[in-house]
C-alpha cells in the first residue's frame, strides 16, 4: 500500500552538545549503509532554518518518504521536524526521533562507547520508521465559553480578560463573595496601594460584565469531556436568601438573634458576624447568606417564635425552604484559580500561637491594621485587663516556610515583603514602638521591593538575623527565644506582641479539584504545571490552565500576570473555534476485543469506555477510545490480554522491530 521506504537520516551536532561526545561523522558513514537508507547527513543545528531546509530539499530531490532525525528528545523538537516534513509534502507522522543527546551524549563520557550507542539508536529508529503509517489529526469544534474556578484576584482577572475578549465566562466562587485573599489585605507592597481600592472595581466589573456569569457560593461538582468540549456541573449552595429579592440592606444581620456571635472568616476570626451575614461591606454580590451551622433555625429547628431575619426582611427574601440547585453548561477551556491556605501556626507549637492571644499571624495583622478591620485599624493588644498599644513588637519570618520539620521546603515568596509592609504600617501608627524583624534571609526580588526594604529599615525597624526557636510567657511579656547569628548572641527578647510571618500552603481540599480535572501536584504539593519554564500555566490535561497561588506561592503582580497568561492560553481554543486532536492515540480492534474492560480501569485519562456493538448478528461489548481524551500513553495496550488495543505509531509491529534492532547490535 505504501511505496518502498526511502529513509533520510539527519544527525545533529547540537553545537558541541552531541558532537563533542559522539563522533557524528562516523555515525553518518554508518547510517548511510543501513538498509533502506537513501541519504544520511550531519549538520551543526538541525533544528535551525538551514537544517530544516536540508531535510526538505532532500525529500523533494531524493524522493525520501521516511525521515529519522538523530538529535534531542522528541519532547523538544518533534513538532518542529513534523512541521518541516509536512511542508515538504510528507505525512508528518513519517518521522522518528533518535534521542542521541539526553539519552546518549549528555550521559556518557567515552566517545567510542557513545558513538556506538548513537549508532544503535539510529539503527533502531530506521527499523521503526519504515513501518510507520500515515496518520491524520482531527479537528473538533470548541465551545466558545470558559469556566474559571475561584474568584480571588487570579480568577477575577482571568475571567475579565476572557469576557473582554468576547467569550462567555462562568466564574465559580465557593464563598459568598468574590475577592479572595486580596480583599482581606490592608495595603499592598511595595507601593502601599490600598488593596480594597484597587480590587473592588474589578470585583464589581466581574459581577456586572455582560459576558460573565458569576456563580458565587457555588462549587464545581462534575467535569466531563475534553478540551473544547467540557461538560460542567455546578452546585449552587442554598443561601436561604432569595438572591433576586435581597437588597443587601443588612437589617437581617443586625436583628439576628445570634447577632455578632460567630468568628468572621473575613476578619480571620478577630471580628464577629451574625448567622446571616455579608462577609464584608464591599462584598460582591451584595447578597446576604445564612450559615446553616450557626443559624438557630437551621441548626436546631427553632429561633424564638419565628426567625428574626424573616420578621425584619422588608423584601421577604428569607427562604428557609431553599435547596441547593445544580446548573450544567459546556465550556471549551477551564482555568483553575483556587488560591492557597495560610500556614496554620498551630503546627509550630513552640511559638505558642494557640496559647497566647498576642501571638498573631500575618493574615490577622492585615485585618488588625485595616481601617475596615475589627479594631478600625488601631493596633491594640490585650494586657489581660485592657486594650493597649504594644510597645515592643517582633515579627518572625519563615513560619511554615523553608522548614522541613513541617514538610514545607519551599519559600513562600511573599512573607519577606508583607512583613516589611506591616512593620511600616505599625511604624506609622505607633511611632514610638520598638519594632524588630527576625529573619533568615531577606528576599526582596520584585520590582521596587529592595527599595521598599531599604525604606522600612530606615524607618527604624531592626532586622535581627536569626530564626527564633520558641516563645513563652514571663509575667506580662512574651519571651522570644532566639539567637542573633551575626553576633552569636543567644537572646531572650521580651516583647508585647509577636507577628508570625506565616507562609502559603496548598489548599487543604485540593484533592477534589485534582480528581475533577485530573491534575497532579509538584513536590511542594501545589498544582503541577506542564513545564516549569515553558508551559507555566498549562497542565497535563489539555484545556485546563492554572492561575495564581494554586500553582505555587505568588505575590499580586505575579498572580495577575499569570492570570492574564492563563486567560490568553484559554482563549486559544475559544478564538480558533476548533481544537486539534492528536493522531497518535490508541485504537481498538473490535473484532478481537474480548470486552474484559481491563483497559477502561487502567486508563489514567478515563479515555476508554465500553460500548455494545453488533458483530455477526451478536450484541457484544467492546472497548472504544475517546480520541480527544487519549494521550497515547500505551497503558491500555500493556494491559490488554488479546493485543486488541494499541497506540498508533507504537503498535507491536512497529516497536518490536525497533527493539530487535537494538538487541541485534552487539
Amino acid at each position, binding site marked *: 500500500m505504501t511505496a518502498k521506504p526511502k529513509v533520510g537520516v539527519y544527525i545533529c551536532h547540537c553545537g558541541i552538545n552531541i558532537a563533542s561526545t559522539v563522533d557524528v561523522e562516523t555515525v553518518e558513514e554508518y547510517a548511510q549503509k543501513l538498509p533502506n537508507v537513501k541519504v544520511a547527513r550531519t549538520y551543526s543545528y538541525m533544528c535551525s532554518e538551514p537544517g530544516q531546509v536540508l531535510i526538505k530539499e532532500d525529500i523533494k530531490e531524493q524522493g525520501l518518504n521516511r525521515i529519522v532525525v538523530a538529535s534531542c528528545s522528541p519532547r523538544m523538537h518533534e513538532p518542529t521536524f513534523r512541521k518541516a516534513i509536512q511542508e515538504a509534502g510528507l505525512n508528518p507522522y513519517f518521522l522518528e526521533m533518535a534521542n542521541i543527546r539526553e539519552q546518549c551524549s549528555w550521559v556518557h563520557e567515552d566517545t567510542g562507547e557513545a558513538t556506538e550507542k548513537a549508532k544503535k539508536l539510529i539503527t533502531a529508529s530506521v527499523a521503526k520508521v519504515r513501518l510507520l503509517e500515515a496518520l491524520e489529526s482531527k479537528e473538533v469544534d470548541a465551545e466558545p465559553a470558559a469556566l474559571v474556578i475561584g474568584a480571588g484576584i487570579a480568577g477575577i482577572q482571568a475571567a475579565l480578560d476572557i469576557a473582554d475578549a468576547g467569550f462567555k465566562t462562568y466564574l465559580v466562587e465557593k464563598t459568598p463573595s468574590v475577592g479572595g485573599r486580596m480583599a482581606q489585605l490592608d495595603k499592598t507592597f511595595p507601593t502601599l496601594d490600598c488593596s480594597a481600592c484597587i480590587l473592588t472595581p474589578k470585583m464589581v466589573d466581574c459581577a456586572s460584565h455582560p459576558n460573565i456569569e458569576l456563580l458565587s457560593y457555588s462549587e464545581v461538582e462534575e467535569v466531563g469531556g475534553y478540551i473544547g468540549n467540557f461538560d460542567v456541573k455546578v452546585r449552587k449552595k442554598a443561601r436561604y436568601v432569595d438572591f433576586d429579592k435581597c437588597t443587601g440592606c443588612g437589617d437581617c444581620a443586625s436583628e439576628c438573634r445570634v447577632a455578632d456571635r460567630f468568628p468572621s472568616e473575613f476578619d480571620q476570626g478577630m471580628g464577629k458576624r451574625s448567622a446571616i451575614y455579608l462577609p464584608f461591606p464591599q462584598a460582591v454580590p451584595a447578597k446576604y447568606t445564612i450559615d446553616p451551622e450557626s443559624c438557630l433555625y437551621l441548626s436546631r429547628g427553632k429561633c424564638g417564635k419565628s426567625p428574626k431575619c424573616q420578621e425584619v426582611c422588608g423584601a421577604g427574601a428569607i427562604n428557609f425552604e431553599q435547596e441547593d440547585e445544580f446548573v450544567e453548561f459546556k465550556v471549551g477551556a477551564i482555568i483553575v484559580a483556587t488560591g492557597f491556605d495560610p500556614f496554620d501556626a498551630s503546627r509550630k507549637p513552640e511559638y505558642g500561637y494557640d496559647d497566647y492571644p498576642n501571638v498573631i499571624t500575618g493574615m490577622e495583622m492585615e485585618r488588625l491594621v485595616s481601617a475596615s478591620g475589627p479594631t478600625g485599624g488601631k493596633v491594640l493588644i490585650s494586657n489581660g485587663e485592657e486594650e493597649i498599644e504594644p510597645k515592643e513588637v517582633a515579627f518572625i519570618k519563615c513560619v511554615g516556610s523553608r522548614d522541613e520539620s513541617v514538610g514545607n521546603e519551599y519559600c513562600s515568596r511573599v512573607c519577606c515583603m508583607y512583613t516589611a509592609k506591616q512593620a511600616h504600617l505599625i511604624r506609622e501608627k505607633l511611632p514610638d514602638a520598638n519594632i524588630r524583624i527576625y529573619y533568615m534571609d531577606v528576599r526582596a526580588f520584585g520590582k521596587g521591593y529592595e527599595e521598599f526594604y531599604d525604606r522600612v529599615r530606615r524607618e527604624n525597624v531592626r532586622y535581627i538575623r536569626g530564626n527564633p526557636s*520558641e516563645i513563652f510567657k514571663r509575667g506580662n511579656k512574651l519571651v522570644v*527565644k532566639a539567637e542573633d547569628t551575626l553576633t552569636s548572641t*543567644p537572646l531572650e527578647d521580651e516583647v508585647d506582641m509577636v507577628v508570625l510571618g506565616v507562609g502559603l500552603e496548598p489548599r487543604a481540599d485540593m484533592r477534589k479539584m485534582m480528581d475533577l480535572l485530573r491534575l497532579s501536584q509538584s513536590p511542594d504539593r501545589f498544582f503541577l504545571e506542564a513545564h516549569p519554564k515553558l508551559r507555566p500555566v498549562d497542565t497535563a490535561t489539555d484545556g485546563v490552565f492554572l492561575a495564581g497561588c494554586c500553582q505555587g506561592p505568588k505575590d499580586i503582580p505575579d498572580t495577575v500576570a499569570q492570570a492574564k497568561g492563563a486567560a490568553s492560553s484559554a482563549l486559544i481554543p475559544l478564538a480558533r473555534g476548533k481544537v486539534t486532536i492528536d493522531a497518535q492515540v490508541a485504537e481498538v480492534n473490535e473484532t478481537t476485543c474480548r470486552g474484559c474492560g481491563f483497559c477502561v480501569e487502567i486508563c489514567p485519562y478515563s479515555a476508554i469506555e465500553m460500548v455494545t456493538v453488533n458483530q455477526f448478528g451478536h450484541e457484544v461489548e467492546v472497548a472504544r477510545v475517546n480520541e480527544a481524551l487519549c494521550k497515547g500513553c500505551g497503558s491500555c495496550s500493556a494491559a490488554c490480554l488479546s493485543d486488541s488495543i494499541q497506540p498508533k505509531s507504537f503498535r507491536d509491529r512497529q516497536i518490536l522491530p525497533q527493539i530487535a534492532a537494538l538487541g541485534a547490535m552487539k
Partner: protein
Amino acid sequence: MSTESQTFTEKYDLLGCIQCGRCTGGCPVTVRADLNVRQFVNDAYDEDKLGQLARLAEIWDCTACHTCAVRCPKGLKPLEVLIGLRSMIVESGKVEPTVRDALQSVLLEGNPWEKPRATRQDWMEGLDVKIAEPGVHVENLFFVCCTNAYDPRVQVTAKNLVKLLNKAGVDYAFLPEDESCCGSEVFTLGEEGLFEMTVEDNTEYLNEFKADRMVTLSPHCFTTYNTHFPDLKNPVIHYTQLMDELIQEGKLAWKGELAKKIVYHDPCYLGKQSGIFDEPRRVLKSIPGVELLEFERSRERSLCCEGGGGKMWVESESKKERLAETRIKDAKELGADIVAAACPFCVLTLEDAMKTLGYEEEMRVAEIMELLGEFTEA
C-alpha cells in the same frame, strides 16, 4: 553506614545548615553555659579545626535534650555534631575519670553506675516478679533500665510497677539479670564503638524474647531503642502508655484521694523527642482528687532538667542557676504540691534542685509510678 568513608561534614550534613540560629535559639543551656551549637555546626566545616573545637569545655554542656534537632528546619541534628566532637576526646582517652568509669562499667557490667551485674535484680527482693525466658511469649516484656534497677531513689518505679501489674493481672515479664544498658548515655557521651557494640549485642539479645511489645521504664531507653535500633523485632513503648491503657480499660482501681496540685514536667526524651505528651497527663488526671497544673513552658516548649547527655557524669562549670532549679521555682510559683515526672533522670535532678532550694517541707518530686503505687489497688 561506614563512618570511615564519610568526612565529618558529610556525616553530620553540615552543608545542609543555613545558619538560621533556631538550634542555639532553642538551646536551654545557653542561659547558663557558653555553648553555641550553631557556631559549632558552622566551624566544624573546617576539618583542620576539629581538634581545637573538641577541646572546648562547652561541648560537655549539651544535655542532648534534642531541642536543636527538633527545631532545625533542614533536618540536621546539631547536638550530634557536639557528640561527634566528644567522641574525638573519648577516643583519645582524655576524658573525666567519672566518664571513663561509667563507660567502662557499661562495657564490663552492663550499666553505667559501676555496680556489679550480679546485683541488677536486687530491687526485686521481696517481690513476686515474673521473669522472661527466651522464646516464651509474653504480652509485655519489661526493660527496667540501669538507673531504675540500681538507684535506691528511683527503684520505687520498678517496684510499684510490679505490684500493680500483679494486681491488675497483666501478662508481663521482666528481662532476666543479663539485661544490659540501652546505651543512651554511651551514645551521648560519644563512645561510638561501645554504642555500636551495644546496638548489636542488645538487638541480638532482645530479639530472643517473644513479646507483643517491650515496655521501657525510662524515656531514655524508650527513645534510644526506637531511634537507634532499627532491627528490633518487638515494638517499644513507654510505661506511661501502658498505664494509660490499663486506666482506659478500667483495670486499675483507686484507693483514697490525692488532693494535691500536681504539675507534670515533660521529660525531653518522652515529650519533645517522642511526642508522648498526653498519656502521662491522662494518667495523673485519673488519680482521684488531683488538680493538674501546667508549667508555662510545657509540652513542646518544656524546659530541660539537664539530666541527659551524659550530664550525670559531667559536672557543669557554670555557677549560674541550674535549669532544674528554675523548674522547681516555677513549680513553686504555680503553687504545685508535687512535681511529677516520668523519667529517672528528671526525678533525680529535680529532687536535688528542690533540696538545694530548701523546699523539701512544702513540695515533693515524684515519679508518676510512685503516685500510682500509693493510690491504686487492683
